[in-house]
């Protein structure tokens, strides 16, 4: 396996990780901490939205995010022909 191919695989990986971490940051530190007061003015199913993100929503998104990453990453592995046999 040559250097260019390895680099292309690694870049694809880093791009996916970057996108996922952006979402990770947005739902927890964004919605749950930094902008919690602004979001709390919005009502959502009996909750103040910022509070809901801090105590419920962020956790649901985290779970989805890992499964999404695992699924996409397996595809990237196959596309770059570096998957395990």
């Amino acid at each position, binding site marked *: *396996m*040559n*250097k260019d191919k*390895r680099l292309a*695989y*690694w870049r694809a*990986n880093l791009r996916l*990780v970057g996108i*996922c*971490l952006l979402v*990770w940051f947005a739902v*927890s*530190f964004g919605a*749950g*901490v*930094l902008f*919690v*007061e602004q979001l*709390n003015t919005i009502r*959502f*199913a*009996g*909750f*103040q939205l910022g*509070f*809901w993100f*801090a*105590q*419920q929503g*962020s*956790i*649901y998104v*985290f*779970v989805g*995010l*890992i*499964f999404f*990453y*695992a699924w996409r*990453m*397996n595809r990237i*592995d196959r596309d770059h022909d*570096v*998957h*395990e*046999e």
Partner: protein
Amino acid sequence: MSLQLLTYIVVGLSFALYIGIAIWSRAHSTSDFYIAGKGVSPVANGMATAADWMSAASFISMAGIIAFIGYDGSVYLMGWTGGYVLLALLLAPYLRKFGKFTVPEFIAERYYSKAARVVAVICLIFISFTYVAGQMRGVGIVFSRFLEVPVTTGLIIGMSVVFVYAVMGGMKGITYTQVAQYCVLIFAYTVPAVFIAIQITGNPVPQLAFGSEVTGTGTALLDKLDDIVTSLGFNQYTSGTKSRIDVFCITMALMVGTAGLPHVIVRFFTVPKVRDARVSAGYALLFIAFLYTTAPAVGSMARYNLINTIQTGEVGAPEANLAYTERPEWFRTWEQTGLVSFDDKNGDGRVQYYNDKNADFAAAAATNGWQGNELTVDRDIMVLANPEIAGLPNWVIALVAAGGIAAALSTAAGLLLVISAAISHDLVKGIIAPHISDKAELLAGRIAAAVAILIAGYLGFDPPGWVAQVVAFAFGLAAASLFPAILLGIFFKRVNREGAIAGMLTGLIFTYGYIEFFKGLFLKWAGAPWGENLAEHWLFGISPEGIGVIGMCLNFMVAITVSLLTSPPPEHIQHMVENIRIPRHLEKTS
């Protein structure tokens, strides 16, 4: 059947189950002992990781802390789940590809240095001891309440059980036992939560009941709670008192710390493939989320029930406060452990529970004839007392006791395994006596576990804070020391031995020093803490719980600067990094 007898039976049955599994899945080789022979399926591994992860702090303390601090408790919820995203994306697949036994072993090979291994072992031991102390305290509380023995005796019983248990299993035994412990603890946590959710809102799903209306009032639970707590001078439930920077830093320290905890990382060494490591982190978090999304609902409902028990009517009306002689059964039993106490300051024979630290509320309290808050409730008992406060049947209460013990034991066993692996595999076999036989290595591990448990017991006897807070310090230390070294080892080829060692030491010493200075951890005998733990004294307004983030940044900066000023790592190390970045085995010729 009496509650005590029922508790003995339920706890006894759960112990029999764990020991049965431990015998059935005994370790036959060092690979079995350290990493379960890499044969654990991702789902089973996820479940075991969840049990290993969810400690006495998660099970016993977390909902109680949230009950008393409301929104501020979000730091634990986000912090202890968000770390799995970092783990799955940044560490787990690569460490699985590396394919060895322990975290210090990775550090040693990546940074081609025995000194780095020793530093990593020191970090690991610091972290694990801080963490295990919290577990022992939790075990002590459960035993003392439900088996009606003093906390110290409870602690000794707990230590003995954990000892027998950790020595038996090895990773293979521990993994399958933890699967059973997960089932016990999640069942024990969910059943009372469902009952209480139905009682208060009529909705059986705690996550939804959390946002539902209180039956017969037309007001949402959280709004109602905000009204009640503020009417007693407490801070609003849905907004916090911690500064924003502190909430940010504590959450970040807990997340990064989670990803840097050796007993969690080592879990991902046990699955067969790299892609299993990725998805296994997802299963682990899914199983954790069942408890973590229930906990805030439990917290809010526990606070609601507690206040309604004490303050039975309009605030200010004399007969609206619970008369001490009419206190319910749970109040009496918890009083005996000293974890609930009543002090009749105004001598009216009734219980007043309000915030006497709130200057704005003082005038109203004085008009009512209140002379200070009279009720002290230890936060750690809220989950355990919750079913009693809600008047649930005895078998539910016995189940909660078994669940609390399962949570504490599974985590303590996991921690003791990484401590003993660090001593026997990294120190003894890796450095002191490389030619030692497998048998001698295991013996060394068992002796290490025995010593570790005695120290942990002592720390559990005299802990520096609530269970969850003690544990929170371990995360700060992990965030500041191990996480940056591992992350840089995978993502930054240029980082070398000198940089990694300097970085780890800087992060560890800075963070540990700050915590010791303000809170006192291991050096109480020497006069710690030396500083007053007040916001105006803190660096940038960051509390000792959140300081690991600054330690982590210092670690990154020092490691990168020192590496760039010294020579790059040798060729074969750079090749090793290339190799762990790719799931398939990489040929040397490329």
